[in-house]
């Protein structure tokens, strides 16, 4: 009795010291709930238990065309992300550094950023076809605005004293940019990249789900129509995990480049 109580106490103590352990328990509990629901409560045509989903992950990737579809989607994501970041950085710097351009065009950028772009998704398909181009383009328009906005903000919220101080020490315009404005902007640029990545993911996936003749969108539609929740959940799960990992990687980079802020 006493030993059991002591063990229980030490277990609770261990949990109290390790929130991540409790977090794992929460995740496990949710998975268990899902498992029970899928096994006993819900029609197997709609939901399959997580154990089965995980066990048949290999089957998902064994399905003819799935690896190629994943590859295609990843290709679209990469191209769209690179374009969004490059365009966003360039535009952000121009807008952020030129007062007249900023006053004139930043409101327009913000307005566009706030628009529900999904309304013009059909237009993208009409203009760019049903191939990769439309998905890339839609990803870029979703990813580019957060990058622009954060770069502009990063250039803007520099403490004026730092510019004054650099000027008093004789910094040239280029040196001001290279040694003051740019390093100050880097952390927000990474924050922008993270937001941009979420945007690109959203844009590309929206377009994929809409067109659904190739890539991931085709297979989610296929699995849904075949009432094959095991494969559907497996595919979605893999993509979701990928999104979490990518986000965490960029966040790490962001923290690394922002370490001078908090230390």
């Amino acid at each position, binding site marked *: 009795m006493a030993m059991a109580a002591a063990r229980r106490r030490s277990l609770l103590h261990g949990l109290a010291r390790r929130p991540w352990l409790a977090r794992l328990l929460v995740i496990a509990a949710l998975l268990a709930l899902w498992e029970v629901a899928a096994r006993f409560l819900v029609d197997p045509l709609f939901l399959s238990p997580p154990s089965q989903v995980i066990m048949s992950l290999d089957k998902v990737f064994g399905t003819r065309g799935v690896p190629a579809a994943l590859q295609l989607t990843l290709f679209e994501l990469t191209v769209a992300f690179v374009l969004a970041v490059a365009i966003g950085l360039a535009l952000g710097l121009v807008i952020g550094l030129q007062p007249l351009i900023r006053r004139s065009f930043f409101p327009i950028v913000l307005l566009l950023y706030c628009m529900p772009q999904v309304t013009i998704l059909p237009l993208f398909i009409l203009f760019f076809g049903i191939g990769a181009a439309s998905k890339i383009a839609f990803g870029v328009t979703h990813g580019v605005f957060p990058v622009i906005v954060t770069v502009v903000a990063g250039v803007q919220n520099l403490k004026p*004293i730092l510019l004054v101080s650099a000027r008093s*020490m*004789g910094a040239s315009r280029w040196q001001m940019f290279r*040694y003051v404005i740019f390093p100050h902007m880097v952390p927000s640029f990474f924050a922008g990249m993270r937001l941009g990545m979420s945007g690109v993911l959203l844009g590309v996936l929206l377009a994929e789900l809409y067109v659904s003749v190739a890539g991931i969108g085709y297979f989610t539609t296929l699995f849904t129509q075949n009432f094959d929740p095991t494969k559907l959940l497996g595919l979605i799960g893999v993509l979701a995990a990928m999104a979490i990992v990518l986000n965490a990687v960029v966040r790490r980079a962001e923290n690394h480049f922002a370490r001078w802020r908090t*230390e």
Partner: protein
Amino acid sequence: MATSEAAIKVRDVFHRFGAEGEQRFVRALADTSLDVAEGELLCLIGPSGCGKSTLLNIIGGLMTPSSGDVEVRGQPVRGPLPRDIAFVFQENSLFPWNTVLENIELGMTFQGVSKSERAARAAEVLAAVGLKEFAHHYPAQLSGGMRQRAALARALSLKTPILLMDEPFGALDEQTRMILGEDLSVLLAQSRKTIVFVTHSLGEAVFLADRVAVFSARPGSIKQVIAVDEPHPRRPEFATSAKFTALRNQLYRLLHDEIRKAVQQSSAADTARAGTERA
């Protein structure tokens, strides 16, 4: 050209912010004239908002006065003079993304100092301000006093004949301030730079300065200049001497009425601003 030995000459400088009739219109500085001799340490003291910092920025070429002229070492000031003048600001002006060492070297980079020379000078000034062990710390890792030491080191590394210090210890606590003041006096006695030093603190002014220029309330102008006849470097004992106390009291009497005036001004301005904002 350089007919006078004055390092800095200020002639009838007047400065205002905003245009007449505007709400934010302020006469910051009434006609002010001033000479600072080569190798002298001049303190500017006065109530808040009396234009001391404005005058300092005008001397340094960071601001252009509404009228009047400033000459530095015989040359009219048209913009920053990084080879003649180095600044230490009140606000933390170290670049937060650079370490202390990088911060110091950056100023020299701006002026095209060679790499080996940069390293040598940085080591020298770091030792001078006692921050050798903190060369690789980021500013955010340092205390306020250490940050201002680093900023001072950066200014010294530029090897300018003139140093302009805008309430460099303004944001620090009294004790840190005292120690920094003593160290500064020693450091500056060795360098024989020409220094203009803005401060709020009566004691700091008397302790550091060769002469103290007392400003009136806004629009600021120089009310009186007091000489502090005491050799550098000043010893801590000076701060407890009768001479020090007498000078400090003299400054206090000069300033007291001006400070009251300034406080009334600013609370009146606050009320006016609050009134228009509500309207």
